């Protein structure tokens, strides 16, 4: 196990390094002079020169890369000229918002997907299975930003039952005292019911939008797992033991079908990161996604670059972790590896 872990972590590291080179390469190709942008339109040539030197723009590519990576590892992710703040600080500030919506969405999506997959295993080609399949197709086929807009039109613009794209709380509502950074939890801790209700209302539309995409992926994966495993002899054996159809699906088939879904962690994370950027933008959710789209508009590429790097790191980490986790929870691998 130790060795396996080491090898996996090492190859993950290698991937991250490769990814960072790719990201760095593209981000350094961009047109325009970042030094001028940072110094400002009317800055003197001298000031621009100083900027250039500070940014190391005159160094050879490899040196620039090494400098960047060195800084990155040390927590210096560059300076965001559009907000006059170190990039890392911005990420830290925006992180709770993103995590809150991501957790919400993943929890929702996972629950729905498990139910959907179980229903599929039970209905197998029936109407309910068809509904599950259709829902997954819809989730996979909708652009999250469009879906976000759609639900805004319906629930905010037309029905006026849920708040519009105004972030995590109604404007003017003070955020609860910070404990976790999740308003939904913090307001509970502080006993601020109206804030809790407000934050929940704000979470619903973006959360569900995000959840649908994740759900679609998960249910698709689990569904095919379930359909594969209900045909396995052990499912038949379970029935021959006297267990009912539903019982077989829930007790015997689902554990098998859920396992491979774990390995999709990397994929789901990638999807989550992507969709977060888009959904946060539509809903003005003050998280990392919004930060990044703003930065794109402002050409603040330190932020974008950091985000791309971080998302690669996260995806790879999650992939490695899920691989390891799979080894831990799948008895077939666990026992062999230890």
């Amino acid at each position, binding site marked *: 196990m130790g060795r*396996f872990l080491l090898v996996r972590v090492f190859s993950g590291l290698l991937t991250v390094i490769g990814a960072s080179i790719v990201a760095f390469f593209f981000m350094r190709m961009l047109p325009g002079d970042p030094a001028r942008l940072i110094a400002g339109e009317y800055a003197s040539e001298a000031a621009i020169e100083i900027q250039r030197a500070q940014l190391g723009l005159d160094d050879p590519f490899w040196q620039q890369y090494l400098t960047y990576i060195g800084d990155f590892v040390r927590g210096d992710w560059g300076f965001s000229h559009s907000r006059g703040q170190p990039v890392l600080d911005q990420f830290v500030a925006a992180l709770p918002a993103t995590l809150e919506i991501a957790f919400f969405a993943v929890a929702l999506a996972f629950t729905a997907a498990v139910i959907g997959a179980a229903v599929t295993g039970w209905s197998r080609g029936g109407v309910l299975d068809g509904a599950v399949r259709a829902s997954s197709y819809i989730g996979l086929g909708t652009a999250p930003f469009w879906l976000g807009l759609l639900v805004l039109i319906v629930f905010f613009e037309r029905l006026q039952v849920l708040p519009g794209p105004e972030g995590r709380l109604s404007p003017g509502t003070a955020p609860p005292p910070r404990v976790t950074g999740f308003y939904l939890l913090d307001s509970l801790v502080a006993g601020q019911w109206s804030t809790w209700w407000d934050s929940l209302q704000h979470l619903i539309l973006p959360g569900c939008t995000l959840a649908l995409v994740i759900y679609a992926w998960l249910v698709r994966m689990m569904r095919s797992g379930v359909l594969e495993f209900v045909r396995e002899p052990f499912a038949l054996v379970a029935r021959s033991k006297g267990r009912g159809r539903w019982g077989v699906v829930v007790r015997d088939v689902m554990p098998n079908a859920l396992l491979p879904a774990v390995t999709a962690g990397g994929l789901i994370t990638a999807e989550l990161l992507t969709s977060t950027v888009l959904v946060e933008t539509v809903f003005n959710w003050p998280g990392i996604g919004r930060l990044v789209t703003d930065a794109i508009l402002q050409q603040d590429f330190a932020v974008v670059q950091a985000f791309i790097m971080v998302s690669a790191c996260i995806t790879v980490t999650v992939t490695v972790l899920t691989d390891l986790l799979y080894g831990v929870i799948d008895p077939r691998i666990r026992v062999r590896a230890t």
Partner: protein
Amino acid sequence: MTADRLPDAAPDVVAPLLDVRGLTKVFEARRARRAEPVVAVDQVSFQVERGETFGLIGESGSGKTTAIRCLLRLVEPTSGAVTFGGDDVLALSGPELRTLRARMQVLFQDPYSSLDSRMSVRDIVAEPLTAHRRMSRQQRRHAAEEMLRLVGIDPVFGGRRAHTFSGGQRQRIALARALILNPELVVLDEPVSALDVSVQAQIINMLREMQARLSLTYVVVLHDLAVARYFCDRVAVMRRGRVVETGPAIEVIDNPQHPYTQELLAAVPGRHGGEEETVHAPG
């Protein structure tokens, strides 16, 4: 080929077609997992005379398949010597090896996965020709159809894909492919164990007929002792990579010397076996 490489060869008899000496194959343990190296084939030696049917028998995992894959050079043996018709098989490479393969064909156990399900059976049968013979399309097609007829498949079905045929038919097609280059030796890896008993008999009959007609030499892997006794001239019994007993099939099976062979035999159920095995009276 020099004699000093085969010190055991008796100088007065004709050299056997296939001579396997001390064949050993060790599968190295995979790095990431802590596993012992597997000695799949351990110092296996046997000789096969021209025209005979030589059987390798033994339980699952005893190394039968690995042994024949080694002598076909489908895996590289760890050590040992294989001489085929005077050529040192293990020393050949590239084009020579390919020429050798034309003389030494193989029929695998699973007729379902050893044929490319995407190709028409005519193309499958003609495939060795594309590799070894310079022939026109027409000639190849003709030869393939001839061969199909020989193994009992109506050539009008030549255009059909392999997966539309039953297991027995597929095994015939595979045999046609193996025979189209007029090989001297055909290696059969459990040619009938995936088939139904009735089909099994058909295939065995056909194999024997082909052998007679084309004067083939067979090396055949089997696990059914009755079939081995019926089909083989001589057999080698393998256990855990080693040959434990060799001899004429009838002798080995009717009168096994090695305890392992006896054990194998005891496991065979039979309507012809001793009456003492009959268990109980119906309730």
